[in-house]
């Protein structure tokens, strides 16, 4: 079988404390219910500086400067033990909020973003020195008067954009009455688009890819764009591709809660293997609503509000080049509708069912990339260490099946797992964060096989109580590329001719 390959993976983080305060759903709900709450008054003192976010070890692991396993060598809590980080990573970058406002502006096709004039001048200078966006600095235009911005907020319900305690701009509504085009939704959607752009631009720049090679884009985040007549009409994918000059691409949006990236990657692999498109990019932007989601617990426990990062990623799937790691499209797990939602059934469906198909044991997978949420964020909020819980479940299933002994359970977790390192942005931590590291390790000959697992809690949409999940295996490329489509056609013709001859001889015998 001619498997498709992972040609590159890129990861973007944006430090967004002002968006956390103004737009995170925990904060907006608290403001609506208890505007004078202790939490809201304390929260600003728990925000991190950009420097602290850059030097936070899990963020460095996310952009590729540190292997997730290396986090085991850093004392906890990681927020109290900063490392020497960089904004530039092997797989991507960490951007500050000021520059990100510029990205939102250049991603805006409908003049919805207003930025104050002097702030715009500052942004122009900064954008002009960014290697990926310098040529787009003129898209910032001249900026707006502060008085006009204030009027838009006061009289037309525009969303405020703040920096260092000052109002620097706003995002307008795109329609007076349409709830799907109101200013809140437009802000969330523009953030998805801009963070997706940052990830896709990094994918192209850091992997020697030409933007016009990409023929299809699948966007797999968790927001929906559309108007009152089609809430999720789309199309983030094409809008992101437009900003990134992917002139030969079309695309579409795929949704599946946190499982969406795994669904998208499997579909991208299928499109390439079928020969429909040569190169398919899977892209996701970040979730504004999830900023500060567990902030109440973090503040109550005297920690920094660690959910101040918007995440994004982009992965390019291409035809087998004999070099890059392959996606084993014959080792795909799916949580089917009839399976039931017990954790045991879910893990069987996603882990052991696909491995059984090809006669592999759970120990044949070097590393499992599950829901890679950073435990430092989730444990204080009572949600436990999500990756470790997943590894224990896989190991326990292995014990039940006889793949490993019960006393090997802890060792399995250590050897085949890794610490969580991704921000709690729903779809962002789900399986995809390790693809870049896995590709690197496989290209260097240091890893053979990884399983990517994405799981989704569909009950949140109130349409079904079913659980969901999809998994697939990435494997080091052996260098052997099987017969081309043309060769296969020739073989098929020979077989068909032989069959015809057999049929003819049978008829003659009759």
């Amino acid at each position: 079988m001619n498997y498709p390959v992972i040609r590159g993976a890129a990861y973007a983080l944006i430090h967004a404390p002002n968006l956390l305060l103004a737009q995170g759903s925990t904060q907006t709900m608290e403001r609506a219910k208890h505007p004078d709450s202790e939490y809201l008054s304390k929260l600003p003192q728990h925000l991190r500086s950009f420097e602290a976010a850059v030097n936070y070890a899990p963020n460095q692991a996310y952009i590729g400067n540190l292997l997730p396993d290396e986090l085991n060598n850093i004392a906890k809590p990681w927020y109290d033990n900063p490392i020497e980080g960089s904004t530039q990573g092997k797989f991507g970058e960490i951007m500050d909020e000021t520059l990100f406002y510029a990205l939102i502006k250049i991603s805006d096709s409908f003049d919805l973003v207003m930025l104050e004039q002097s702030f715009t001048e500052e942004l122009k200078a900064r954008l002009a020195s960014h290697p990926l966006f310098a040529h787009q600095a003129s898209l910032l235009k001249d900026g707006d008067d502060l008085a006009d911005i204030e009027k838009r907020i006061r009289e037309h319900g525009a969303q405020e954009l703040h920096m260092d305690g000052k109002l620097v701009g706003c995002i307008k509504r795109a329609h007076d009455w349409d709830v799907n085009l109101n200013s809140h939704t437009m802000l969330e959607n523009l953030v998805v688009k801009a963070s997706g752009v940052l990830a896709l631009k990094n994918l192209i720049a850091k992997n020697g890819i030409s933007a016009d090679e990409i023929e299809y884009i699948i966007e797999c985040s968790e927001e929906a764009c559309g108007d009152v007549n089609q809430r999720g009409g789309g199309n983030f994918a094409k809008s992101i591709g437009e900003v990134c000059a992917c002139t030969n691409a079309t695309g579409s949006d795929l949704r599946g809660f946190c499982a969406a990236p795994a669904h998208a990657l499997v579909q991208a692999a299928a499109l390439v293997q079928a020969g429909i498109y040569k190169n398919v990019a899977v892209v996701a932007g970040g979730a504004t609503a999830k900023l500060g989601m567990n902030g109440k617990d973090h503040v109550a426990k005297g920690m920094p509000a660690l959910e101040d990062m918007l995440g994004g990623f982009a992965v390019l799937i291409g035809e087998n080049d004999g070099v890059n790691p392959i996606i084993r499209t014959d080792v795909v797990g799916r949580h089917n509708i009839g399976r039931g939602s017990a954790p045991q059934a879910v893990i069987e469906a996603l882990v052991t069912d696909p491995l059984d198909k090809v006669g592999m044991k759970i120990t044949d997978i070097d590393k499992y990339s599950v829901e890679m949420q950073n435990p430092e964020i989730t444990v204080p909020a009572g949600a436990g260490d999500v990756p470790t819980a997943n590894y224990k479940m896989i190991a326990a299933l292995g014990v039940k099946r006889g793949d490993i002994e019960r006393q090997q359970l802890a060792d399995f977790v250590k050897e085949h797992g890794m610490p969580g390192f991704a921000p709690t942005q729903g779809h962002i931590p789900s399986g995809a964060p390790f693809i870049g590291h896995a590709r690197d390790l496989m290209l260097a000959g240091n890893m053979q096989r990884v399983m990517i697992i994405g799981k989704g809690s569909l009950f949140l949409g109130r349409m079904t109580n079913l659980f969901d999940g999809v998994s697939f295996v990435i494997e080091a490329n052996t260098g052997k590329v099987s017969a081309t489509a043309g060769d296969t056609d020739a073989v098929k013709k020979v077989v068909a001719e032989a069959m015809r001859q057999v049929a003819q001889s049978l008829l003659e015998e009759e």
Partner: protein
Amino acid sequence: MDLENQARIKELAEKHGPENLVVILGGAEAEASGLAAETVSNGDPTYAGPLSGVQLGLPAYHIFEDAIKSLVDPQVYDDQISMMEMVLDVDEIIKEVSTYREQYRKF
């Protein structure tokens, strides 16, 4: 505890009478399971949901507790629960849930 689940439990208690209800928990973590047991007996300690200040006094058990486990078909338990029993801190979860249950149950 999820606000919607609080509303459901409150409604069920009003409809069937709290003396006729037992809550079975499946939480994966001791603190969260204890919080749920507290919420359905002594009221929502976070004062966020419909059970704020409402002391239903319902007894809550975790599915891992023998009192409940022994009522389940062993094959079903093995298929649905046994793997998680291997993974989670069963003793800690039971300790937390039973502490709140014995402290606040009215029935």
